[in-house]
């Protein structure tokens, strides 16, 4: 291995095109690589595997990645600015559109942050409903991840199986709150919608049907030698790097840090439920895969407990019709499927937030890409992008 690396030590630096060096000032002094074989490859924004409009500039030596640079913002819609010009209730639908595959979680985080600002708490029934929906949403988000991740690595079929099962979740969402993707499910202070007739049965039915399906996905992938080779040892992040990079969610847990906001700082009714935090050992792509698969199982466990223990009572706390939080600021975060999703809201006492800051997990996690892919091959870049489970709507906001 080292033979090839030390190969080109005496080479002259090659010329790269105009402007390229501006993008990449990585490693140009790294004498183990020859500039003459250096190739700058532009991946994205219009590329099949960048999950939207991510643009990654790869500096390659043959197939080997010497460095990357992410160029983001193609989907920037100024969500934070919009937030400053909408009332608290009006802004609620907008947060659905950040991480659009896990819109329920986004809504939950936002509602909780505002509730904290208002010092109200959702009634127990609402909290249980919220947990059920959020966990369903976590499963659906993980299914989208699994499908697309497998697709990136070349397995075409899991995508369809995942989407088939996700469809059941989306049906529950549609029945519950009238929309499948951008749900706008929760309101500040609780839930607007009461559980529809048969909600519990639907959830249970889904849980019962889903676990065998999950085994099926595993049969297709977990032991498959190609899958294992493609994922094991790829994109390793050790716990120290994870923490320094602020990486959260399954990526952090796969590195062996047993940290989950649902346990660490329980919000809603999570302290009522019995569930495990799966962790990995090596922090590679395979571990992240296993962690997410296990998380789906744990989510099923939570959903079952929550459905069984669904209390009765009101579903929305008393909140003023016009929400005018007192002057103050609050940071609140929840464990979204992709990591810590935080909202930092500054209120000036008016009906609109003075400052609405979203701490998106995908944005922060994406920063780890460069560290993860150095020294790997081009094919691993897509695997790593897939395993980071980013949603560009959230990265760019």
């Amino acid at each position, binding site marked *: 291995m080292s033979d090839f690396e030390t190969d080109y030590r005496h080479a002259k630096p090659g010329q790269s095109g105009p402007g390229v060096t501006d993008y990449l000032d990585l490693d140009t002094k790294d004498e183990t690589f020859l500039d003459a074989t250096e190739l700058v490859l532009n991946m994205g924004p219009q590329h099949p595997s960048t999950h939207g409009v991510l643009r990654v500039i790869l500096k390659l030596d043959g197939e080997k990645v010497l460095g990357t640079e992410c160029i983001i913002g193609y989907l920037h819609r100024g969500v934070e600015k919009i937030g400053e010009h909408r009332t608290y*209730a009006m802004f609620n639908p907008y947060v659905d559109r950040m991480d659009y595959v896990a819109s329920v979680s986004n809504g939950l985080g936002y509602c909780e942050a505002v509730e904290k600002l208002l010092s109200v708490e959702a009634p127990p029934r609402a909290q249980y409903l919220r947990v059920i929906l959020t966990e369903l949403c976590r499963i659906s988000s993980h299914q989208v991840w699994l499908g697309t991740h497998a697709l990136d690595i070349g397995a075409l079929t899991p995508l369809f199986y995942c989407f088939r099962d996700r469809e059941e979740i989306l049906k529950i969402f549609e029945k519950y709150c009238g929309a499948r993707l951008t749900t706008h499910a929760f309101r500040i202070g609780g839930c607007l919608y009461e559980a529809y007739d048969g909600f519990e049965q639907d959830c249970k039915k889904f849980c019962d049907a889903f676990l065998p399906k999950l085994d099926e996905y595993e049969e297709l992938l977990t032991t498959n030698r190609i899958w294992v080779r493609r994922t094991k040892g790829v994109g390793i992040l050790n716990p120290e790097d994870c923490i320094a990079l602020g990486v959260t969610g399954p990526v952090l847990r796969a590195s062996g840090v047993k940290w989950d906001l649902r346990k660490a700082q329980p919000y809603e009714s999570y302290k009522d439920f019995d569930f495990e935090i799966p962790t990995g050992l090596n922090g590679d792509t395979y571990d992240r895969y296993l962690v997410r698969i296990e998380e789906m199982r744990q989510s099923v466990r939570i959903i079952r407990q929550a459905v069984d223990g669904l209390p009765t009572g009101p579903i929305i706390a008393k909140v*003023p019709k016009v929400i005018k939080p007192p002057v103050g600021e609050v940071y609140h975060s929840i464990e979204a499927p992709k990591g810590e999703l*935080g909202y*930092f809201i500054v209120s000036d006492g008016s009906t609109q937030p003075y400052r609405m800051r979203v701490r998106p997990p995908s944005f922060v996690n994406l920063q780890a890409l460069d560290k993860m892919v150095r020294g790997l091959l081009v094919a691993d870049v897509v695997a790593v992008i897939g395993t980071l489970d980013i949603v560009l709507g959230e990265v760019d906001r």
Partner: protein
Amino acid sequence: MPEETKGPSPASPQQGGEKPPAPTPPVPAETAAPQAVAAPQPETPAAAKPAEPAKPAEKPAVPATAAKPAPKPEGPKPEPWESDLAASLRSQYGTGIREACTYVGQKYLVVDKSILYEILLRMRDDEGFDYCVDITAVHYPKRDEQFDMVYVLYSFPKNERVRIKTQIKDGDTVRTASGIWETANWLEREVYDMFGISFDGHPDLKRILLPEGWKGYPLRKDYPILQQDQEWVQINLGIESGQ
């Protein structure tokens, strides 16, 4: 906790139309009558408070409905944060620590800009706040020190969060935290992109979400959106953006 750090002058209180749930008795009809401009642009040049379309109309209606379920007219107040950490910091830095408070259970420190880096480093190394959750800023155009820099830190060992804030003037630079936490790299770039706050020693300070060549810093309160729209979107993309 002085008011001025929290918010700008409590400008004209403004109501957006809030949703009265369906079964509420009908709102007196005349309240809504003169509201002809039903599609005002919320992004209109909005330095302090944009023209509130709904304000005069809703005013009589709201107190009737909103007053009674709001038992706490003033809301929670920040309380001094009493802990070993706060005490030791206070004793070490004296007036450098301008505030150490908790608000709805969340702790925050307001420190002087000059000792910010030192504090951050100390928080990571000595106090175990090894995870930088978020870095952001808030713009208060009416204040002398226009910007609040906010660092949200989290400690895995202690399982607690703290916010560190500092106030800086427009044009001031802040020493980068990317040497302390790698994650600060992009977060500071975003602050730079959105607020125009420069960071000393940042490895790669350039716009992150907005394209190169964008003018202005959108999350400043005095950012003219319409002008930007004409200047950039129409010229570079050649489309009517419909703003």
